[in-house]
């Protein structure tokens, strides 16, 4: 078995041995459900789609993903197991990918477990299931980007709390940066092209495009490149730690 696979399995197992996995799943499912019905006006809209469900995801991830990723490297640094892991025959890349994939698969599982809401909407009406599938894909890609950010920032520090706060901060910036209020703030100060470039950095914009069912290559690329970029940064940080 390849080292990536071995690291991934170990990580996944540790989620379920420590209560992290169950706490996450319960909170995610309860919040995703209640927010959809109460804050998202699922019934009052009288539309057979899952927009009110997906709209909540960035905000759920904002709190819950850093909680999963904060321990990823910080805990290994602090507990000394980083030395054990990195003196086993694997590359930094393999270690990083194994950990990233474990978290990403785990969020995938959490998303799959929201299936009752999909059943509900199909029972109540006749939604476009293609759009719903695109929504799930967009949500999963966005989660992957959050995880990659968390993985990188967890490599930065030995403190899980610091990793959590930094990750949440970067994620909230990436969510908010495309909001009209933020763009208005920049409108006067920066040239128009730059403002538009900033708007394109917004995670929300790309996520909403995908979850409306429009699968544009540019939106998919945005998430893929973000993930790869943050993971590369994380690997570089880990390497830098070995020279300092």
């Amino acid at each position, binding site marked *: 078995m390849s*080292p990536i696979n*071995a*690291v991934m399995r*170990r990580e996944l*197992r540790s989620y379920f041995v420590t209560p992290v996995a169950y706490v996450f799943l319960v909170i995610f499912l309860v919040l995703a459900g209640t927010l959809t019905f109460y804050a998202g006006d699922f019934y009052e809209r009288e539309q057979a789609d899952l927009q009110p469900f997906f709209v909540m995801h960035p905000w759920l991830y904002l709190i819950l993903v850093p909680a999963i990723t904060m321990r990823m490297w910080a805990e290994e640094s602090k*507990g000394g197991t980083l*030395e054990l892991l990195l003196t086993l025959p694997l590359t930094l890349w393999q270690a990083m990918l194994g950990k990233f994939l474990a978290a990403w698969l785990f969020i995938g599982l959490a998303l799959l477990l929201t299936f009752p809401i999909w059943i509900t909407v199909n029972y109540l009406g006749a939604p476009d299931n293609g759009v719903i599938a695109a929504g799930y894909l967009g949500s999963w890609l966005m989660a992957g980007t959050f995880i990659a950010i968390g993985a990188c920032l967890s490599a930065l520090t030995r403190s899980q709390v610091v990793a959590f706060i930094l990750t949440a901060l970067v994620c909230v910036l990436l969510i908010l940066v495309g909001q009209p209020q933020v763009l208005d703030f920049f409108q006067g100060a920066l040239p128009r092209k730059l403002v538009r470039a900033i708007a394109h950095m917004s995670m929300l914009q790309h996520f909403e495009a995908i979850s409306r069912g429009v699968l544009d290559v540019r939106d998919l690329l945005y998430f893929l490149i973000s993930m790869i970029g943050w993971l590369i940064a994380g690997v570089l940080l880990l390497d830098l730690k070995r020279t300092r």
Partner: protein
Amino acid sequence: MIETDQLTRCYGNLTAVDALSIRVEPGQVLGLLGPNGAGKSTAMRMIAGFLIPTSGTARVCGYDVSREPLKAKRALGYLPEGAPSYGEMTVREFLQFIVRMRGLKADAAYRRFDEVVHRLQLEEVLGLGIDTLSKGLRRRVGLAQAILHDPPVLMLDEPTDGLDPNQKHAVRQLIDTMARERTILISTHLLEEVHALCNRVVIIAHGKLLADATPAELEQRSRYHGAVSFSAPGAGMSQEMLGRLPQVASIEVDPLDGRITVFPKTGERILEPVETLLREQGLEVSEIQLERGRLDEVFRQITTQDADAGRNVSSETAE
């Protein structure tokens, strides 16, 4: 084989390891000795490929740890300081994780797994969480991890730290049986361990190599080497007689138990003349001993010299 060439590591202004060049051959058990903070662990971390050297190189089985890290790491079994392991895993899960990481083939892995578990007496704790184990057991789990792939080169950072005397004995036996065709580097600050295990000793302090010798050679540097000590009631008057022997340099009496130690002049053997003299005096000697030398004294003497004096010592041994 482990080779380091001018291996250096700085943390800011502090030079933790300073141009360390050592070479350990198969069949050798090299004890890396030094006071706390001497740079033992830092040196080992560089050889294991965890830390990147500021300058210089390290090779394991001929593979440069910076250029061919995977090959070097495959050849090496390493027990990091404090024997870290994943606390939330059971011993079995943890060792199986190592088996997978090492890419061991299925049947060979099972056989080797059983053998290592048996050797380190871990059968009864296989199903227990590592967090719940005692310090000694955790150390043994760490050792099992290091030898699971039967590596040609073994590097153990304080392997017997935290073990009780019986466990220490068991671990030393294990290292002894593994020693024959392997290259073993252990760090320790237990001098008894050097006697029990090592056929070569390197002493470092402030990151610099101060001595490289066999334990016996180090003992010869002790002023106690070749001295004769004995306990005899009423030996006070014979002290003067002993002092008159031509081979004797000085005499010391332990103020606590009255034990007398007679030091020889350089190159002289004094056991026989002292014995003869005592017999002639008709003294009842309850016990008499020829001292081999005291490692702790040599260790202190070497590591408390200033760095310049230290360099002289190391150039002496290099000759």
